[in-house]
């Protein structure tokens, strides 16, 4: 009886691990998509409303799903009081973003690059920077989506099988 319970727990654990990995993959594509949309919104706001970064972050943050939305709203809150160096708070918040989301180093790096240029250029240049960032993010999204489509099912199946395999070895 105890053996049976142990075996079930092992299978359950590996299955859960597999599901978690695939969930992360799915979350990453979702987050990347939100990120790209949010940048699109940001660009439009810069172009038409000529608002400050602070208010653009606020409105983009309200229209974007969390955790990406939260990232923008937090930035907006920090910018409410005078900030000496924008890049330092951008970097700080990116760190937090990386900890709380499934985003990988790759896209965080792209966003860091953007932070260096955000708000430092006239509008035409600014647009180019954002478009470039979106282009890079789109590429990572495409890769991530492909990966997800390829592996999510396999990972789920394999995780169950690995569990059964471990049980078989132990018996």
């Amino acid at each position, binding site marked *: 009886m105890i053996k049976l319970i142990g075996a079930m727990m092992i299978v359950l654990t590996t299955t859960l691990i597999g599901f978690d990995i695939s969930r992360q993959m799915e979350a990453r594509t979702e987050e990347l998509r939100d990120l790209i949309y949010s940048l699109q919104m940001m660009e439009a706001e*810069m172009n038409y409303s*000529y*608002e*400050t*970064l*602070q208010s*653009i972050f606020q409105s983009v943050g309200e229209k974007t799903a969390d955790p990406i939305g939260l990232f923008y709203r937090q930035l907006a809150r920090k*910018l409410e009081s*005078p*900030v*000496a160096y*924008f890049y330092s708070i951008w970097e700080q918040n990116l760190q937090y973003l990386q900890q709380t989301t499934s985003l990988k180093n790759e896209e965080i790096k792209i966003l860091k690059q953007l932070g260096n240029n*955000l*708000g*430092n*250029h*006239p*509008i035409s240049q*600014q647009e180019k920077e954002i478009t470039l960032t979106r282009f890079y993010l789109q590429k990572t999204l495409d890769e991530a989506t492909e990966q997800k489509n390829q592996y999510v099912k396999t990972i789920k199946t394999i995780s169950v099988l690995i569990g059964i395999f471990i049980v078989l070895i132990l018996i």
Partner: protein
Amino acid sequence: MQEILRLFPPSMAPDVFAAIKNRFSTLEEIRLRVDKPIELIFTSRSSWIKEVIFSSKDRDFVLTQLSEHSLYRLETELKEGFITIDGGHRVGLAGKVHLHKGQVAGMHFISSFNIRIAKQIRHLALDLLPYLDHGQTYGHTLIIGSPQAGKTTLLRDLARLISSGTYRQSGKKVTVIDERSELAASKDGVPQFDLGRRTDVLDRCPKATGMMMAIRSLSPEVIIVDEIGKKEDVLALLDVFHAGVSIICTVHGSSLDEVAKRITLKPLFLERIFQHYIFVSHEASIGFTYTIYDQERNPLRIIGPGVSDD
């Protein structure tokens, strides 16, 4: 003062603060030039902050602070060469101007900033107002003075007094056409200075168009404009003078006769439209002095702290 100090890099702000100390009330300008020390201009003298050299990195810092980390917003400001910040202070810019089809399209590589400290001196115009009073209305008035003489400060207080009302007259509906965002120092359309209770401000509006817009839709009793000088302004003024609205405006000049000789302004004098002329001068040790002229340009009276009140 905080709104100005925040423009400086954290390493520089304490030095600037120490140099200004308690002299903020007499501070008129802070001038920043790349690779030069910072210059402070007070009412009576100017001094340098020699400890700090304003580097091009500091320039970038000031620029991001001015734009609130949003340089893309400053397209029009860079075209016009100044930015209005919180508190109504104006920052003038100099740098490499680039042109598009012969028109100034913007500025690159900013090399100098001139932070002009804006002040509101309440009751500055109180002694002057009775001379412009025509019972139920105010007379058309031209204020003349050289740059920094205090024309704008005077005009600001006139707007405030006329629209809020004094013991002699109830408040009038005032429209201020603030083409250079200097009189009201509006931020996002809302005046930062107290221009009185019955004042409407057309911010950044060209004067000629603005006067027409005001008459059409805002039904003002008094229109206040700063710095006329262009041909269109004069044409628009000639039109508006007969619309039953009092006009109060300013013009650059070192004396009334000199202004009367300027070609663009000549029509205004030929028609003898203005009923009052006020010449403003400002000397650090004395303060503001006003010379009031009548319609025929004869001096009527001089008001100022250096003049005895008889």
